[in-house]
């Protein structure tokens, strides 16, 4: 059965394989994760469409291909009797790139690298292939065999790295080592004398890689360099290719800053009330609702109040038209170890506090587990980011296109505040709004922020 690059949403036309979770020869169950992809919208694990054995991987890690491209072949359970006979097994094994243990492997390299050229706009710079050789070498460090083969190798003084493996996944099987033994101690001795010749991949590490070439390609125009490239490479350095997610974030940020004239306003909000509500209900909430009680749902609820009162903040810009959204779909920036993603709380205006809290926690959890669906990161109408969790007093976020505004929530901390000419200790937070001045003027922005502030400072809604 052929496995294709899935279409992860209507507007997605290509995907990058970031990681194979199975190797050729591995058994796989239906719906077991087979590979990870990265698209314009999400990173996701793709489950196997069938149970069987992964026979062939057609698209290597890091390669980008159009949707519906065949990326792998699975031998479905019970099918393909002829494939199991020993004879054809050999050429199969020889094709598997990770099994570099075979000297001829280099000569049989498949013409994969040519493929991306046929794709209109390859988002992966050719340079990202550079680190591949060390990775391949690392995978051969561990020679796959069996207890029997290891014992035979020990008894016959054979270096297993010199024995071509024809078993599943390039494994050195009993037959392989028997052949090596019969093929004479001669082969073993020879190999002992000149070990470097047949295994070029074990060559000493290359000197520091040369600077990567500029990427070109329309899709990457946003990522042009600000200074001549040669001025970046000096002293000691390490070059890391950007992940697909990182490239998308970079493109998106440059694009947003170029398209939307950002204006920022900052408000200070007294959240002593909701801090008390939270402290008082935290445990009960977790027990009753089964989900954590964080500050975020308070801010989402308050933002929804603001958006309903001032719809121009809940909009998109299409040329000379302003698209006023009827739904309040709130994107929530979730920091990941490997980047950032903005899952969306859909129809937040229809949800009560608990519904919002639950949705946020669920989305954040699944974002970290790479289990988001593409439509869960699409169709936001407004976004919230939370630099405060990392201690930021406040941030001036970049608008998440196609929104026209983004709310930044700073760190909540106790500060001395003047109330009625007395100094009080209150829990305070700085809220920032970055807004697109093409459609949102200062007046609307501040009115919106006023509504948010008022909602937070005069919290009345039951949270359970």
């Amino acid at each position, binding site marked *: 059965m052929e496995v294709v690059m899935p279409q992860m949403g209507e507007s997605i036309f290509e995907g990058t394989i970031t990681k194979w979770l199975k190797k050729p020869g591995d058994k796989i169950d239906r719906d077991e994760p087979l590979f990870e992809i990265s698209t314009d919208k999400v990173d996701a694990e793709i489950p196997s469409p069938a149970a069987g054995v992964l026979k062939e991987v057609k698209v290597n890690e890091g390669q980008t291909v159009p949707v519906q491209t065949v990326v792998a072949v699975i031998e479905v359970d019970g099918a393909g009797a002829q494939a199991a006979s020993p004879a054809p097994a050999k050429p199969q094994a020889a094709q598997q790139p990770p099994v570099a243990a075979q000297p001829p492997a280099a000569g049989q390299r498949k013409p994969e690298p040519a493929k991306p050229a046929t794709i209109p706009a390859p988002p992966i710079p050719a340079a990202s292939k550079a680190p591949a050789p060390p990775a391949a070498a690392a995978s051969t460090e561990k020679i796959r065999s*069996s207890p029997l083969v290891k014992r035979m190798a020990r008894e016959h003084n054979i270096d297993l790295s010199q024995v071509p493996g024809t078993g599943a996944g390039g494994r050195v099987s009993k037959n392989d080592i028997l052949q090596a033994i019969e093929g004479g101690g001669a082969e073993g001795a020879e190999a002992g004398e000149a070990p470097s010749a047949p295994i070029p991949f074990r060559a000493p590490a290359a000197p520091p890689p040369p600077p990567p070439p500029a990427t070109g390609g329309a899709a990457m125009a946003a990522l042009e360099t600000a200074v001549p490239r040669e001025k970046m490479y000096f002293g000691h350095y390490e070059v890391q290719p950007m992940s697909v997610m990182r490239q998308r974030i970079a493109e998106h940020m440059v694009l947003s800053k170029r398209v939307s004239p950002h204006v920022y306003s900052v408000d200070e909000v007294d959240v002593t009330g909701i801090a008390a509500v939270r402290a008082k209900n935290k445990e009960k909430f977790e027990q009753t609702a089964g989900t954590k009680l964080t500050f975020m749902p308070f801010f989402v609820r308050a933002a929804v109040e603001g958006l309903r009162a001032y719809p121009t903040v809940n909009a998109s810009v299409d040329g000379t038209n302003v698209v006023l959204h009827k739904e309040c779909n709130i994107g929530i920036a979730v920091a990941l170890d490997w980047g950032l993603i903005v899952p969306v709380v859909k129809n937040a205006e229809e949800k009560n506090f608990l519904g919002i809290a639950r949705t946020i926690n669920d989305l954040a959890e699944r974002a970290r587990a790479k289990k988001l669906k593409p439509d869960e990161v699409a169709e936001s109408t407004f976004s919230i980011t939370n630099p405060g969790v990392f201690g930021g007093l406040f941030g001036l976020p970049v608008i998440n296109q196609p929104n026209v505004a983004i709310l930044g929530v700073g760190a909540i901390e106790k500060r001395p505040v003047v109330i009625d000419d007395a100094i009080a200790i209150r829990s305070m937070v700085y809220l920032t709004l970055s807004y697109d001045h093409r459609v949102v003027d200062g007046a609307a922005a501040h009115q919106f922020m006023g509504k948010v502030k008022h909602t937070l400072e005069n919290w009345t809604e039951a949270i359970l």
Partner: protein
Amino acid sequence: MAAITMLEGIRQALFEEMDRDPAVVTLGEDIGVYGGAFKVSEGLLARFGPERVIDTPISETAIVGAACGMSYLGLRPVAEMQFIDFIACCFNQVTNFVAKSHYRWGAPVPMVLRGPSGGGVHGGPFHSANPEMYFVHTPGLKVIYPSTVYDAKGLLKSAIRDNNPVLFFEHKFLYRRVKEEIPAGDFTVPIGKAAVRREGRDMTILSYAAMAHTALEAAERLAKEGIDAEVIDLRTLLPLDRETILSSLKKTNKLLIVHEDTRTGGIAGEIAAIVCEGAFEDLDGPIMRVTAPDTPVPYSPPLEERFLPNAEKVVAAARELAKY
């Protein structure tokens, strides 16, 4: 000599042993007048009379308790479970009294507990069980589960002559389906010895009871693909024939275990441990198993077919194993 069924082989063993030794008595539900639910004991009553062929009330606990007591008093009872599933009713008698008696009181219990077992006949969850592993886990018992007419007859005779309790499982799918010409006259088959049913080089397929036939069928198909499998019929599950298992593995270096019993806690797990302990450095691939899934035997015929291992499933697993 004409070929006879497994059922007939078992009946012959009962006849011959009762004939040979007046201490041998049989007891069970409907084994006398009716001749047994499967007619295994047909003719016994007429030949040996109601004192030695005892129709019991419907109480498995009573049957086993009575047999245990009989054996204390010098008899050699052969008790029948009408379906082996019902052995669960007398679990306490079997595991606490019959199995421990010799250890605890120095009182051997030379009894046989036999009954029709296994699925494939659309018997549903209460008439298809393979409860052998409860008893393989019970020290003090011997557990036999034959696959051929010769073995059924020879092993039942050995069981009756054994001075300790033996559970004798009879696969009801095989009762009338396997036929064999067997030698006339008295013969026995030793308890605790496996049989190599087919010699091969590439892997060992271990099985027993109905699945021994499935394993053989699979091996013949595999031979056409160039995979030469050795097939071993365990015959006795307790004590296990470690020697035959390990020596075959040392030859073929790969092991596939097939059993009709459910997966978790099946004999395959124990064999895998024996092989890892005794022949780890002879393994050239993972120890694989084809078993029933962890559910009761389904009643619906298509579901039961899906539930039971068959030659196709064995062939598929063997192909995977061959690739290592």
